[in-house]
């Protein structure tokens, strides 16, 4: 048990992101409702973001905004230690990823509305039936 | 061997290709269109013949166009064998052109422009195949020829031609993709080259089983040669207008198939390798089978063109048979049969077409007594039949004679029997037609109805007379072709 706890502490973040991702993926594959699938998709994407943010984390470091820099010249006097600040790169990447995901989400919602306009349902099985009714194969 | 670089082979190929746009643009003026065909045909023949002296001197003419990998290029090389084939194809093209004018106009066929355009394309591909310097180029033109003839075969655009066209493609395209292509690439994989050379391209990279499989893939893969069981496209293709059957399915297309097999056996494998592995016998057996079975089937056909088709299947195998003998006499006999059979069989097809145009009759049983009404046609038919059977004084005798000598030379006496038997069969299925034509009673006479039948128009009769005469001439003067073969194969 004494060995296990550090291991869990060291890795649990990664494990939980995997679980979150599995939830999202499962919802995307197995759910019947298109909106539910979209929620799954979003969970899936946020899980990846969580993973990236976890990569960037450093113990005993602070947020990646250099302090005492407001004066302009002041910053140059202080020596900046890399270990003091959390890695900013994953954050940058994830800002991008979040915006991508919201953009995709918006488009997907628009699509869902279009589908509903045409078929009056968002359930996959019912959609399939509607398609069969109007003589279109899947 | 001296090699001359020249653009002539390319021009010979392209000439009828370039004429296609002209043909299409002058589609509303049939006379202009047809004169263009002649001009192109004659230019082509002149180009081909202009290379003849050089080849007879024992030189070669070569031109490399695109080299896309070492040893695999799109290249032309004119040697004796290719020259022989090119002369046959290009000279018969002119004759056929005259004939097809008569035929197509006589029957008022639709889509004549399309017909002549694809005809020109097909003949281009044939010349290209004749002048190929390597297997890749040969394959290229082989495929172009297959595709260009499809619209010709399916020309009538009705249900029968749909089915025939389908069968035609299935066999021709299917075998070439499924068998030739992998075999060819495997050759390249093993040797790194596809260039034809009389010594073969394989040094000792092939084991006997591999060589056997490869050879069989080629022999069956070039299905245009009509080796059984890949022969049934040829009778099916007889739905096409007769000029197509005559030039393409007695000369160009089928001979390209045979020519390809000859090329592969002599240029890729090499006579020595085949002899070492004793593969000649294998091919000979297959060819003999085809010869006999096809002859027997021909006997039972009542439709004239189908009978001719089965006769063609059997005669094609003679050529392969001859080459597979792997002896000088056999090679000579086999290859010269390309020429002899071409002139003989095209005469026969021309006759069949002329009869159809003049009387609308397709079936042999209807043709008794026609010889009196159409004496020239039936005389020509007789000469053609003699050529195919191998009776003097038609050219066919010369080739058959050499083939028989070849079997003796190779000490394959059993196979000699095959030749003899098949000659009898040939006689059985041709001579009765001639006999009935001249001496039988026509249906009209029996019915006592009005007799209006006469010779077909001149455009049809002249070509068949020409080919019949040439067929006889060849018996006396085969020297040019013999020399070509000797320089080409180095025998």
């Amino acid at each position: 048990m004494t060995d296990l706890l550090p291991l869990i502490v060291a890795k649990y973040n990664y494990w939980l992101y995997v679980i979150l991702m599995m939830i999202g993926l499962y919802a995307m594959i197995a759910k019947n409702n298109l909106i539910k699938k979209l929620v799954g998709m979003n969970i899936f994407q946020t899980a990846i973001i969580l993973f990236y943010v976890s990569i960037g984390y450093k113990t005993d470091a602070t947020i990646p905004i250099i302090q005492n820099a407001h004066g302009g010249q002041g910053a140059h006097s202080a020596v900046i230690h890399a270990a003091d600040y959390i890695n900013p790169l994953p954050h940058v990447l994830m800002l991008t990823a979040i915006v991508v995901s919201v953009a995709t989400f918006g488009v997907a919602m628009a699509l869902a509305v279009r589908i509903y306009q045409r078929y009056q349902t968002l359930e996959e099985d019912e959609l399939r039936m509607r398609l069969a009714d109007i003589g279109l194969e899947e | 061997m001296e090699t001359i670089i020249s653009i002539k082979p390319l021009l010979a190929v392209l000439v009828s290709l370039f004429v296609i746009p002209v043909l299409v643009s002058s589609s509303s003026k049939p006379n202009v269109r047809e004169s263009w065909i002649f001009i192109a045909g004659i230019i082509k023949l002149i180009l081909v013949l202009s290379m003849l002296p050089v080849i007879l001197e024992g030189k070669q003419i070569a031109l490399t166009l695109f080299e896309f990998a070492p040893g695999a290029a799109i290249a032309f090389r004119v040697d004796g064998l290719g020259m022989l084939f090119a002369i046959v194809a290009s000279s018969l093209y002119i004759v056929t052109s005259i004939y097809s004018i008569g035929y197509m106009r006589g029957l008022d066929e639709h889509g004549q422009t399309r017909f002549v355009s694809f005809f020109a394309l097909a003949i281009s591909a044939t010349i290209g195949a004749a002048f190929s310097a390597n297997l890749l180029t040969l394959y290229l033109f082989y495929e172009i020829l297959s595709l260009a003839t499809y619209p010709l075969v399916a020309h009538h655009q009705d249900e029968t031609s749909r089915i025939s066209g389908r069968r035609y493609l299935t066999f021709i395209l299917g075998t070439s993709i499924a068998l030739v292509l992998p075999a060819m690439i495997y050759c390249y994989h093993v040797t790194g080259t596809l260039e034809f050379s009389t010594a073969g391209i394989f040094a000792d990279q092939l084991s006997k089983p591999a060589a056997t499989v490869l050879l069989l893939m080629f022999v069956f893969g070039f299905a245009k040669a009509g080796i059984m069981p890949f022969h049934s496209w040829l009778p099916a293709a007889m739905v096409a207008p007769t000029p197509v059957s005559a030039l393409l399915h007695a000369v160009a297309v089928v001979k390209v198939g045979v020519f390809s097999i000859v090329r592969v056996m002599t240029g890729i494998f090499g006579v020595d390798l085949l002899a070492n592995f004793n593969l000649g016998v294998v091919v000979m057996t297959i060819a003999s089978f085809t010869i006999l079975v096809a002859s027997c089937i021909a006997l039972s056909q009542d439709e004239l063109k189908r009978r001719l088709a089965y006769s063609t299947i059997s005669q094609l195998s003679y050529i392969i048979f001859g080459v597979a003998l792997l002896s000088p006499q056999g090679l000579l006999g086999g290859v010269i049969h390309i020429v002899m059979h071409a002139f003989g069989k095209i005469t026969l097809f021309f006759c069949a077409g002329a009869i159809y145009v003049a009387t609308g009759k397709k079936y042999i049983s209807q043709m008794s007594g026609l010889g009196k009404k159409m004496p020239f046609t039936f005389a020509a038919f007789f000469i053609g039949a003699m050529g195919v059977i191998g009776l003097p004084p038609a050219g066919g005798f010369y080739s058959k004679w050499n083939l028989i000598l070849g079997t003796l030379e190779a000490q394959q006496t059993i196979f000699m029997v095959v030749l003899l038997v098949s000659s009898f069969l040939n006689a059985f299925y041709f001579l009765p037609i001639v006999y009935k034509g001249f001496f039988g009673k026509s249906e009209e006479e029996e019915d006592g109805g009005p007799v209006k039948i006469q010779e077909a128009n001149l455009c049809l009769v002249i070509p068949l007379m020409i080919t019949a005469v040439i067929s006889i001439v060849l018996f006396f003067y085969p020297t040019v072709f013999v020399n070509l073969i000797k320089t080409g194969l180095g025998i």
Partner: protein
Amino acid sequence: MRFLGFIIVCLTGALLLYGTGEFPDWGDPDSPASTHLSNHYIEKAIEETQVPNLVTAVLADYRGFDTMFETAVVFCAGLACFLLLRDFSQKKERFYRHTPTGVILHVKDSKKTLKVGKEFEHMDKDWVPSDLIIKTVCRILIPFIQIYALYVVAHGDFSPGGGFQGGVIFGSSLILLAISYDLKTLVRRVNEKVIGIFAALGVLIYVGIGVICMSMGGNFLDYSKLAPLVPGDPHHIRALGMLGVEIGVGIAVTAAMAIIYINIVSEGRHDEGL
């Protein structure tokens, strides 16, 4: 499907877990991710760009090219929603309310319109009377939200935030207007054409700055080449360049969010919604 999904999910999970086996510990300062590139960013960024917020520095400068496409993605999403849903056909039925009396008129003739003004006002089919409290509170709040959004954009160099966040907040303020009043109010105030132009313009500002850098003889988006064009301390030129692109991002995001919302909520008819 459910079963298949389950298996796929389990396989993926197993694969991912297998990959975590050789991960460095969570928060390990010596992991490759935290040493190779990031140290350069942390130590040099302020010197090279004069921007204390490292995330902004990396986002808008070192990886500014990514961010440009990011903005393009948002623009594209807006355009996609517009293209997918926008429906120019007039709706047949209209509802009006006679303001003084509160009587609701249902006009079924599509050609007949009433003049909207003091006497009549537009109304939604599923209309709920506007709540005075909500209306008033929002009316007060919205300007502040918008000012805050501007602050977030402008102050992105020094504190968390930047163009995206500011843009989204500004967009939300517009959406709040639509929710608290009605969609027509928003559409009336912010013309569709204006939003459309702004969405493209925002990204264009970003790309334009890059192109100007190029025309000044530098690489694409190399802000340092802008120095001759902008008065002030040439040391801060990169920070200024970043501010410029952040403004572009803000505009584009604001417009895109508004377009997406308006189109989804009104099914593209721009008449009634939440």
